[in-house]
């Protein structure tokens, strides 16, 4: 089981030298990291620290700032500067966003001053529209862009699912131009890395999202009924996916014999139904995962990080997911995967209509094997990134 917080630094720096410094630039409220992208960024922060870096933060304040956040950030980072976001963020007709319209030049002076004060070896920005900030740093500073997602023509994925495009979507040309500014661009999924490489980029490093394992894989005892669960925010993909899944369950005409617990912002958009228990916002993730036996991820589409698929594996719970929910993980996945919500619903009714405790034990073994495969892949990719950093810093 991998615990990044306990990972020994790779000794790529001769002993006696001061720790190299990395500047992380983020618009996310990183503490507590309760959103997927914030958690990915904190994964990178832990990774840099494990490699022996001292990490500073330039917080592009788009998600609020208050004394408690100030306290939390100064505990986590070496130095923190906070800049108010003034990016115009225009969205042109057809939902086309230009990087120049989303990039905030107001970051530049603060970034330059921080570099003068602290002398960074690496600057790490998140999302392609922050790539122009690299121009403020000389060739002696290693430039890392964490893409989080592919944003070139991202709107098409929404349109294909019958949804209105949301957030950032740009042209391939704009995205390619941003990627070329980086010494390394991190792809969060293997498929995304392959797609970017297929577009001619030779600076792509694949680094999946994995969090430290917090619970062992062991079916719990006791008399509690077998419980299924889904936790998600109120984004369009989650609402669409959960609505479709529950409608498929209810269309069976017979009630599913096990409770389905729904938690997170998506609860506000989920209809009441027999056997559906809505928890709403949960303060701590373990309270949700401790309350369920099997996690569900009935995604019908989406982009980027599939945190709901990986997260249960940190809490010792197996996950049943559709193929879109396992995107980027299919080559490692050892649990059942389903073409769509019809297939997922069929599986649930066929295997859990009468009990299913034995199957739970089997799924738990598969989940543990999946977790080990994920950890092995992550360790391999971290080592690759560490070697690359060592060659550059």
């Amino acid at each position, binding site marked *: 089981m991998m615990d990044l917080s306990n990972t020994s630094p790779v000794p790529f720096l001769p002993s006696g030298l*001061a720790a190299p410094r990395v500047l992380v630039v983020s618009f996310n409220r990183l503490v507590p990291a309760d959103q997927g992208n914030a958690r990915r960024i904190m994964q990178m922060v832990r990774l840099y620290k494990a490699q022996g870096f001292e990490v500073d933060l330039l917080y592009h304040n788009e998600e609020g700032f208050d004394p408690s956040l100030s*306290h939390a950030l100064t505990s986590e980072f070496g130095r923190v*500067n906070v800049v*108010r976001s003034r990016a115009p963020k225009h969205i042109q007709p057809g939902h086309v966003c230009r990087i120049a319209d989303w990039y905030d030049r107001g970051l530049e002076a603060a970034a330059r001053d921080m570099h003068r004060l602290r002398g960074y070896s690496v600057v790490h920005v998140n999302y392609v529209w922050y790539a122009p900030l690299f121009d403020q740093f000389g060739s002696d500073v290693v430039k890392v862009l964490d893409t989080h997602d592919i944003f070139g023509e991202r709107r098409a994925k929404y349109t294909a699912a019958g949804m209105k495009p949301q957030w950032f979507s740009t042209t391939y040309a704009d995205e390619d131009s941003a990627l070329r500014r980086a010494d390394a661009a991190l792809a969060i999924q293997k498929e995304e890395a392959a797609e970017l490489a297929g577009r001619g980029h030779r600076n792509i490093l694949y680094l999946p999202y994995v969090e430290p394992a917090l619970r062992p894989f062991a079916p719990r005892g006791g008399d509690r009924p077998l419980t299924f669960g889904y936790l998600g925010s109120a984004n369009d993909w989650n609402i669409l996916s959960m609505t479709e899944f529950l409608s498929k369950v209810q269309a069976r005409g017979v009630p599913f014999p096990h409770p389905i617990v729904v938690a997170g912002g998506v609860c506000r958009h989920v209809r009441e139904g027999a056997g559906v228990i809505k928890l709403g916002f949960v303060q701590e993730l373990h309270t949700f995962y401790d309350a369920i036996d099997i996690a569900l991820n009935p995604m019908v589409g989406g982009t980027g990080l599939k945190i709901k698929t990986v997260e249960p594996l940190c809490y010792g719970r197996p996950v049943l997911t559709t193929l879109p929910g396992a995107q980027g993980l299919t080559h490692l996945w050892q649990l059942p995967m389903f073409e769509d919500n019809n297939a997922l619903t069929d599986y649930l009714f066929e295997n859990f209509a009468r009990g299913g405790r034995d199957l739970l034990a089997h799924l738990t073994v598969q989940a543990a094997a999946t977790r080990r495969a994920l950890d092995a892949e992550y360790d391999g990719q971290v080592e690759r990134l560490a070697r690359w950093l060592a060659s550059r810093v």
Partner: protein
Amino acid sequence: MIDADSVLASAPTSPRVGLVIDVWVDLFAAAVARNGALGNGLPVVLTDTLRALPLLETQGPVGWIHTAPWRYQDYMAVAQGQPAPRLRIEAAGAPGDATRLLRRSSLCLAAVPADRAPAIQMAALVSKALQARVPVLLYGPPAAAGWPAFEGIIRQGALQPVQASDARVLASAGLAGLLGDAGLCDIERALTLSAQLARSRQADLLLERMHDGRVKLRLRIDPVQVVAAGSQTLAHHIAHEGRALFNSRGLGAILLPWGAPCQARLLLRNVRARVDSSAIALGEHAISPTAVDYTDHGAFLRLAVPAVAPGQDALLHLSLPRDAVPGDGFCDIGAAEFTVETA
């Protein structure tokens, strides 16, 4: 209690030069930075007390290395952002960071301590700066007890004496060349800098040549750049609000721009009662306001501030009357002005 009229007259003419030496150092270093002589490098100040050089900071960030601990959090401005802590490193606690900062610096200003122990530590740092070919300026009152620790470095580094009235100043050869015949206290250079800073709106600085050859310097500064927090809670509130706050009990601290005697004018906002009876102190000096003007903007407090004693932090402590402190918010300093007469 300090009387307004006695402040500037309190020091005889000759020692006053020593008291205002950091004003001249600030003017000179800011002029050097403004003229691009530092490139992309960082000016670094070595000190054993909590001080600021606000004019140099108008030209970019400044690193501070301390040879004695300090207990207050102070702030630098961040473009379009919340104030950030001034970069202060305690040499004994983080020797690696201190050395690293020095090696990256393009100018090293060393305020010679009043005591021998911090001077020995500072001399070792100056030696590292010289080894890294960083231009160095040593300055302080000639009587400072720390000077003997630097004598070897002065010889080995071939530091040259610089004309600075009766203050003792020594500089690396290249830096001494920049100073010119007038030395550190070059009024023409100061007037030029003042005009440049005003034109570029980098500072609200007014310099006046007085009839006796001295210069009166008036600085209006964003109070956040001189506020100091004595607790973590207050420090995070200041970072969050970007205001020069007092704490919830009406306690606040100001980091005086220089150690020189000065006239200070502070606008206290959100006070709910008269503040004439505020307790104000600088080191062992208790200070009474020379005047308090109550306006729609708040209470303007006028203070005659004596020189900061050698070896002491330039911290002015204020304690507002309890009935002046709102129960549902903070008082703050909305404007700050400091006037100094140089020798």
